């Protein structure tokens, strides 16, 4: 029986938020195509995964065991065996550092096309209609897909994850033994615990040159903490060495789609705008009333970020404490 395979990942003890998005899409596609949903995850222990997978509509959880240290070769080998049954005409994933290495290789194994940065999927007759961005979202492309097999990797935060309340998924364990893989994870320099990553964040607070200097960043940090937000930065301050490239939002940094984006002391050059214009709500705080950022914002505040931020942080904390 053909089924839809979701290539999933874990985060902490549960499923990655992007895996939940992929399961949600798989479930709706599965309903239209009369196909069940299966989930594959690299893990040695099922833990609470079967329950959560089932909640989001997966019937089967395929556990790839024995990969002690991440290796794309090991993961691909494990999935190759799973795919060889020919059971899965559709493979869906989120977009992560892992999926970017794995999904294209699965496309080669299946000899099927992979469509990346998928924003929406609709069933059109025997095929699919898929929307994805071009030129960093300056243009949206609608593709007609008429193939028996296709792989889709989802642009983060376009599909809203929702649970269906199903019973726990049945677990199938697969031992993956690849001795001495040609590429292997040697070391991880983990960021500070509790740090929210830009691409799954609901709220982002980004700072630009209007912050005056790196020494003022504690104001951004305090506000981000108060909002429970991830921290971003403009290219200008990254190039100036005030902030690390991992925080850069924009054409040559990260493309983000949070519910709420604060652009603080950021003028709004097109290269930055393309990185955040997908945000549901944009708040701009800038000294210059003519700054282009105000054209993209939903709420504009003309003022000095250095005076506004502390007041805003206090007001938000007070509000959260029930004031």
């Amino acid at each position, binding site marked *: 029986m053909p089924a839809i395979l979701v290539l999933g990942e874990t985060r902490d003890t549960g499923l990655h938020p992007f895996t939940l998005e992929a399961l949600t899409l798989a479930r709706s596609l599965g309903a239209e195509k009369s196909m069940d949903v299966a989930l594959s995850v690299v893990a040695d222990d099922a833990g609470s995964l079967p329950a959560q997978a089932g909640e989001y509509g997966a019937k089967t959880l395929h556990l790839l065991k024995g990969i002690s240290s*991440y290796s794309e070769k090991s993961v691909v080998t494990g999935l190759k065996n799973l795919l060889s049954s020919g059971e899965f005409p559709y493979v869906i994933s989120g977009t992560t550092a892992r999926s970017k290495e794995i999904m294209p290789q699965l*496309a080669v194994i299946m000899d099927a096309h992979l469509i990346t940065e998928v924003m929406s999927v609709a069933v059109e007759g025997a095929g699919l209609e898929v929307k994805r961005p071009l*030129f960093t979202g300056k243009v949206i*492309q609608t593709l007609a897909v008429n193939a028996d097999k296709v792989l889709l990797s989802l642009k983060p935060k376009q599909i809203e994850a929702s649970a269906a309340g199903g019973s726990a998924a049945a677990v199938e364990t697969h031992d993956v033994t690849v001795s001495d893989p040609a590429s292997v994870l040697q070391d991880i320099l983990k960021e500070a615990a509790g740090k929210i990553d830009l691409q799954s964040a609901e709220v982002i607070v980004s700072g630009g040159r209007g912050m005056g200097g790196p020494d003022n960043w504690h104001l951004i940090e305090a506000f981000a903490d108060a909002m429970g937000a991830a921290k971003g930065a403009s290219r200008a301050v990254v190039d100036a060495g005030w902030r690390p490239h991992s925080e850069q939002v924009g054409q040559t940094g990260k493309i983000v789609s949070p519910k709420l984006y604060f652009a603080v002391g950021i003028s709004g050059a097109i290269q930055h705008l393309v990185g955040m214009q*997908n945000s549901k709500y944009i708040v701009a705080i800038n000294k210059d009333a003519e700054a282009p950022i*105000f054209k993209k914002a939903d709420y504009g505040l003309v003022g000095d970020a250095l005076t*506004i931020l502390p007041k805003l942080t206090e007001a938000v904390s007070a509000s959260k404490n029930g004031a």
Partner: protein
Amino acid sequence: MKIAVCIKHVPDTTIQPRIKDDKSGVDLSSINKFAISPYDEYGLTEAVALAGKHSGEVTVLTVGNDKAQESLRKALAMGAQHAIHIKTGEATDLPGLTTAKLLAEQLKAGEFDLIFFGMKAVDDELAMVGPAVAALLERPVVDSIHGLDVADDAKSAVAKRETADGTEAITVRFPAVLTTNKGLNTPKPPSLPAIMKAKKVSITAVDAAIGELPITVKSVDLPPERGDVQMLSTDGDEAVGQLVDALKKDVKVL
């Protein structure tokens, strides 16, 4: 050491693409400024540096129309020795697997120790051709590297790349495929003598055989317009109050 670099000839990133009247695609004829896709330049710069250090040679490849030759010439001027042009004629928006197969076909015989790709092209942002080629050639791949430390014997390397959880160090044995991200190095524009010398290099041209594709472009559109901005009070305290109100009532995050 033999190194290959796959590049793409793309519109300059500052342009606002215009949509054709029939919405069938982007009007590329209206664009007159093209360049090597920026992420590819990190791979090219790294390849040239490695070739210099290990007495090697760099071959640059591209899949594209006749105009793509411009980017091959620039890559030669930036230090590559050989160039292969896989010509696609008028075909555009090729799916990643199709491009990967065309490249793998040319790369197979080359016995390259390393093949570099940009981690994505800035026009279609497929972000998949490098890893697909790795699978076709049965080689390991490390995606989106911003650091690379090649061993003295040039048979392996430790690559650094970023994930949502932090920075990873991946050990990889050659022959391998690497896709490159910002931070790997600083590409430099070629010198005029290098540009002149590059004009004399003979580029190998092959015609791409692209059959019928199951994926076609139905239409392109501009993204939905955002609403107008609500400018808040010029009095800081008042504005902060208004904003918190909006965050509570409209945005509903508080």
